[in-house]
């Protein structure tokens, strides 16, 4: 079983290296499950929520849909 800390590390690596600076939740889940096949969506969400609360990841919302991104990569300032 991967711990939240493990999942956070995988998510972070993905956020740093993904071809785009913003990604959907599902993209993140698929990536994590490549390394940890039995990782549950719920646990991945818990890990990503922690990363958001720590200010490492950010939400990027268009109003109708939401993406995640790494703070400092691509558009991450206000506007």
């Amino acid at each position, binding site marked *: 079983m991967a711990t939240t800390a493990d999942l956070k590390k995988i998510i972070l690596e993905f956020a740093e290296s993904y071809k785009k600076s913003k990604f*959907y*939740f*599902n*993209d993140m889940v698929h990536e994590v499950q490549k390394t940890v096949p039995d990782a549950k*969506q719920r646990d991945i*969400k818990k890990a*990503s*929520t922690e990363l*958001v*609360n720590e200010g490492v990841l*950010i*939400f*990027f*919302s*268009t*109003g*109708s*849909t*939401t993406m995640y*991104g790494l703070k400092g990569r691509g*558009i*991450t*300032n*206000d*506007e």
Partner: protein
Amino acid sequence: MPVGPVEQKKLNYQELRIYSDAELHNYTEEELKSFKVKHATPICDDYEKGPWPSFISDAKRAALHRHKLPKEKLMLSPDVIDDFLGQLELSYKEGEGHWKHGGIVGVFGYGGGVIGRYSDLQQEFPGIAHFHTVRVNQPGSKFYDTDFLRTICDLWEFRGSGLMNLHGSTGDLVLLGTTTDQLEPIFYELTHSMEQDLGGSGSNLRSPSCCIGRARCEWACYDTQDLCYQLTMNYQDELHRPAFPYKFKFKFDGCPTGCVASIARSDMSYIGTWRDNIRIDQKAVLAYVNNEIPRNGGALTGRDWGKFDIQKEIINLCPTECMFFDGKTLSINDKECNRCMHCIHAMPRALRPGVDTGLSVLFGAKAPILEGAQMATLTVPFMKIESPYDNVKELVEKVWEYWMEEGKNRERLGEMIQRIGIPTFIEAIGIRAIPQIVKEPRSNPYIFWKEEEVPGGWSRTIEEYRSRHKR
């Protein structure tokens, strides 16, 4: 765990108010007539001339009011609404929008509720350089008292543009236009002073919304407000932290009248219904026939609608032709009734929904983007429900689990169902196909059996078959 009943805090506007009465009533109708906003707006002005109430007139009123408020009681420019109208005029003139949508703005810990919006003409219209939208989760059935409304209006005048839209199609109060630095203070006031939360936006569960239900309506087949509240509280994480492929909406109608139009506007629509018979008061039926009780609860007014004709107005209009009236007694073949509600609406004192009530669950309505608009599909014809609604939650979670796994990015539940087909969907959420959920007889003459549907599967031996069927 069921939540509540929670003692709701009674707001006291006199304690929370920001503006005095004199400040709120700070202009005269005479002043309004000669008032001009900062920019010339001939096209907008023209739109005020039509027969309907105009949002342009409202905006001008609000602009004048803002100009006359003390500057120290406005956190945004007094010119916000002037600039808003100026940019709108330009968009009408050029036939092009000037808003930039989206971004990273929000309040701490929430992935929804705030929608970033910026002008792409910030030099020309500095007052609306930032013009973020804040969605506020509406109270159940949109019950407000004036203390609440006046408090939120003061707050929004002080920390926002003062412009709002009651309500967005999801149900929220939509507060239009504020700057990034005001978001946290607004959120603090909303949650701490007003005990009100932000609504959903983005790939979240959107603010669930319900009809007025048992609070006022005799047709409610379940307590829409309670179910809406319980699910809102139970799914806080889904409401505020986006992890779905796209938006997801719950709406609760207490009966098939559909006052919140859940069948057309929600991914998961709950519609109250009954499985016994429509209750008939034969005496009252005759009173309608003899014109002693006005039809439709007295709603048909404005002209002479003539004498009530039960044959023409009720029996012949029943869509399933399941009603009969022999001059004395009304009978209904309830097995055929599809709960259109027409007869009940027309003769509310004579006909009432049955007493064995519950709800139907339908999935997959959405507005057009792919494939056009789509109504929800009846999937669970009847479900008995009772707080804490464990059976409802179990169904919700099965659907989410499947959609989060199978749904593509930005694919609504209804679009996914269209792509994979209803049989696959109901199988995934563990529902047996039954005639009530079939729209029409199948047009495909072939039946494809799955191994588990055939006794003995694919492995039965030919010998056993041959023992009964000789070559």
